[in-house]
């Protein structure tokens, strides 16, 4: 039962870290919105899905790559990858702002109950995924290979592939940039202030609506970046991939203490590794079940997350 895990421990670990970083970025979408609104951004999974399509559209339709064309090299490679990343982020970021505008804003202004907001958010996520289903005719969409999956080196029997390395480093860089932004920028401070005490933030001259829109935007950008990395590694998407990703990333956010950016980092990596190891032991079909069980256990026994409480005090 454990042979696979032992045999391939290091390659699994590397895959787990790459997957973990994707989770980190998506769970930022959950955690940041939760921080300011104390509500789950239910549509984040679909925002991710739209990002993955943004990535594919860029390479396929803008740069004209097909399943059979040769991978890019040199400056062209950098250009295409960078465009894909930007497009994915832009699509996801705009989608997130749209979600806030359509599903959350009006209800928030009215001060209607949480159940209504939650249902409204579920509604918008259905709209997003169904729209894509109709656009793609329910078919999976493969991504042309832009980045050749060269094996760079071998460490302890594990192949280190280029796409994995790019994912790990670039995702980590984006994460740290975001963390800096929230910690140091004026808007970031406003976001933190709102998440700690909404009224006090307003009294300091913070424009609540702008902060909330920005938060959705930033969360969407991170989630979109994850969409790009996901495509780079897995080279495939479908209208319904958001669901499993959303469950996992949400679990990661909760694991690290939802509302807490650093927590998303630890939670994402932890869950990425756990998922890869668990699949090696139990089989990939039970991956989602593992994630779910982790989620329930954490919510029941450590609702503030494994990695310490969120920095913010929870509002009553």
């Amino acid at each position, binding site marked *: 039962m454990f042979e696979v895990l032992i045999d391939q421990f290091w390659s699994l670990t590397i895959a787990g870290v790459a997957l973990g970083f994707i989770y980190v970025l998506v769970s930022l979408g959950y955690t940041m919105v939760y921080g300011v609104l104390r509500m789950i951004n239910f549509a984040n999974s679909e925002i991710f899905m739209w990002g993955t399509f943004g990535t594919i559209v860029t390479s396929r339709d803008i740069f004209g790559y097909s399943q059979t064309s040769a991978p890019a090299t040199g400056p062209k490679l950098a250009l295409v990858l960078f465009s894909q990343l930007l497009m994915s982020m832009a699509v996801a970021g705009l989608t997130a702002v749209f979600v806030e505008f359509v599903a959350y804003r009006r209800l928030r202004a009215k001060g209607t109950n949480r159940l209504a907001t939650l249902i409204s958010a579920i509604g918008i996520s259905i709209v997003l995924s169904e729209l894509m289903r109709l656009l793609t005719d329910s078919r999976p969409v493969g991504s042309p290979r832009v980045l050749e999956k060269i094996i760079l080196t071998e460490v302890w029997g594990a192949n280190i592939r280029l796409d994995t390395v790019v994912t790990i480093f670039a995702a980590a860089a984006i994460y740290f940039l975001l963390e800096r932004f929230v910690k140091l920028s004026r808007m970031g401070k406003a976001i933190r*202030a709102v998440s700690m005490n909404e009224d006090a933030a*307003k*009294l*300091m001259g913070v424009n609540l609506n702008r902060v909330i829109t920005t938060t959705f935007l930033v969360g969407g950008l991170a989630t979109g970046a994850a969409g790009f990395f996901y495509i780079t590694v897995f080279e495939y998407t479908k209208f319904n991939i958001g669901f499993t990703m959303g469950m996992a990333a949400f679990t990661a956010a909760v694991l690290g203490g939802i509302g807490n950016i650093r927590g998303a980092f630890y939670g994402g990596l932890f869950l990425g590794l756990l998922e890869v190891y668990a699949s090696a032991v139990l089989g990939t079909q039970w991956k989602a079940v593992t994630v779910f069980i982790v989620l329930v256990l954490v919510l029941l026994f450590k609702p503030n997350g494994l990695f310490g409480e969120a920095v913010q005090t929870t509002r009553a």
Partner: protein
Amino acid sequence: MRLEIKDLHVHYGKIEAIKGVSVIVNEGEIVTLIGANGAGKTTMLKTVSGLRPITSGQIIFDGKDISKVPAHERVDLGISQAPEGRGIFPGMTVLENLEMGKFHRKNRKAEMQEDLEKVYHLFPRLKERVGQAGGTLSGGEQQMLAIGRALMTRPKVLLLDEPSMGLAPQMIANIFRIITEINKTGVTILLVEQNAQQALQRAHRAYILETGNIVKEAKASDLLDDPAVREAYLGTGAH
């Protein structure tokens, strides 16, 4: 500069919390609103700072009706509130909290050091704790931080909501002394308090609020001697 609240009505859902209240605060005054729990004092302050929408009435500041201006813009006009229950940012350091008080200012860098010094002068304790997270301060220190942070916005009118709440007697006296000191630097103060004794001693004028209505308005010193007020709010009435 003068703050005038005219015939203010506020509803919470279907319940009318403020039933046609008018209050005037002149420049340089300390005006206090006293009343029992649930009389509507905090609601009054929140409508002035903009945290709470009003049903009808007017809030006139510097001759302009600001009742529709959103809260974050009222800070620019010079209205600042130190919220009840010391609404500081617990995850930020003392310094970061104070810096948030300059959030709305375009030229924050220029004013920052000067105003920080002023706050530290009033509350030397805060200077000792600059690097500490707000949430780890004691109750009295959090209250100081909330007031200090409000002062960082350079308010014309400072709204104080129950500054003595939950403080030890010695600390209460200290906070009220500082309130007078702040007032002497030219800041007008609207103070909401349950500790009527202290509030009336410090204030120039006072309003008594009962279940959403003003039942009395007078010079603070007169109310201190008013037997009915003494009985109801000072607990020292003749009986």
